């Protein structure tokens, strides 16, 4: 017993080192993505407050650029006003209110902190649960996708952007479905997998969202094809795309909520359970 105590006394610095090192590594690798974002969640209210103050200061420096962006947005929205359109088909126009039910609502938000140079990037928005933002909602900016909300606090939320190595979402390219992923490096380039080789695609083709996930409505812009690699023996194209969103200049975003999400999820779940019951 005395020997053990003497040993501990002699090597306590090394023991402490390995203890703390183990603790650090456990934090890094022991937590899966969800727990990791739960940590972020604890930090958002405190750190979010500090970041939003900094943002208030640094925003003045970018007012010119923001003005340009807003003017552009205004111009685009004004061009969509009904008074700018010739009504060619009165039947659909008149009954729009009773035939169409709104599926998506858009809330505005501002990016108050962002990283773009890492492999696991995050954005922090100045909207949280009190403003109706929930986990798994989609985030878009100027009609192009940005990411998905991973955690929320009362007044802030953290978004996993497309440029995060764990991000995935289904996309559509010339009618075919693929998976959008990002593998680190250039924040402008991403990859689309699972597009079969018989699909005819060209550099410059547009990639949009499918509407299959609840995060994004169908047809939101994702990016444009810049490179197609057919070297591999697999039966899928390897497509490199240029993302439509410039994550370095992101400022105002819209948070998408799907009003039918719960309803659709509940019937899908019921169906899965019914199928599961047959299997057993």
């Amino acid at each position: 017993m005395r020997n053990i105590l003497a040993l501990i006394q002699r090597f306590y610095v090394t023991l402490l080192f390995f203890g703390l090192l183990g603790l650090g590594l456990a934090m890094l690798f022991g937590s899966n993505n969800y727990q990791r974002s739960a940590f972020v969640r604890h930090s958002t209210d405190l750190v979010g407050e500090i970041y939003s103050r900094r943002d208030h200061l640094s925003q003045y420096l970018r007012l010119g650029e923001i003005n340009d962006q807003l003017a552009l947005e205004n111009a685009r929205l004004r061009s969509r006003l009904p008074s700018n359109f010739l009504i060619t088909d009165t039947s659909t126009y008149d009954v729009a209110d009773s035939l169409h039910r709104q599926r998506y609502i858009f809330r505005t938000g501002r990016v108050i902190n962002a990283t773009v140079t890492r492999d696991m990037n995050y954005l922090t928005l100045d909207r949280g649960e009190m403003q109706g933002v929930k986990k798994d909602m989609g985030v878009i900016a100027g009609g192009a996708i940005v990411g998905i909300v991973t955690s929320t606090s009362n007044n802030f939320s953290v978004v996993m952007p497309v440029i995060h190595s764990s991000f995935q979402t289904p996309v559509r390219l010339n009618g075919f479905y693929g998976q959008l992923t990002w593998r680190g490096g250039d924040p402008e380039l991403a990859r689309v997998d699972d597009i079969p080789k018989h699909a005819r695609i060209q550099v410059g083709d547009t990639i949009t969202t499918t509407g299959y996930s609840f995060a994004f409505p169908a047809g939101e812009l994702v990016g444009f094809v810049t490179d197609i690699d057919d070297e591999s023996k697999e039966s899928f194209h390897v497509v490199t795309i240029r993302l439509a969103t410039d994550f370095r200049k992101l400022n105002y975003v819209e948070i998408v909520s799907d009003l039918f999400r719960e309803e659709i999820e509940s019937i899908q779940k019921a169906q899965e359970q019914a199928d599961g019951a047959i299997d057993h």
Partner: protein
Amino acid sequence: MAQSIIKSILRILFLILLQSLVVNKVQLLDGLILPWIYIFGLLMLPFETPRWLVLMVGFTVGFIMDYFTGPMGLHTTACVILAYLQPIIQNLLAPREGYEITQRPTIQKMNLTWYLTYAGLLTVAHHSVLFFLEVLRFNDFFYQVLHIVLSSLATLLLMAIGQYLIFTSKSSES
């Protein structure tokens, strides 16, 4: 003594804020150069600080940085390794008679060569752990090495400039 402790704590907090609010916003060459100057607060700890305390301070500083910037554990691990190596490097570089009680690990109290060796070794160690843990793959090996070398040089340069700006030769008490 008490004054020196308070100064160390204030310096560390100031550097963490400076790092997360200002320096992280500066991305040179698309993030190829990313200085982590907050470790300056650790490198400045007096020579006579007990080793266990250096480790605990390293752990705490890393934890706070993680709290500010993203995946938990990243800076914690890098800072604990830095804090373990720091006294070892100090011993290796010690003058024959050992350090005097008035000496501090600064350019003014030691000299430029001593400081660049001391801070250079520790900065490279810290940055290497940090960047390889974050990326965790070796396929862009040369890019990573360039990243580490350039970022370490930027950190060293900023720390050296900081010392010339902050401490005149008279007022470098702590």
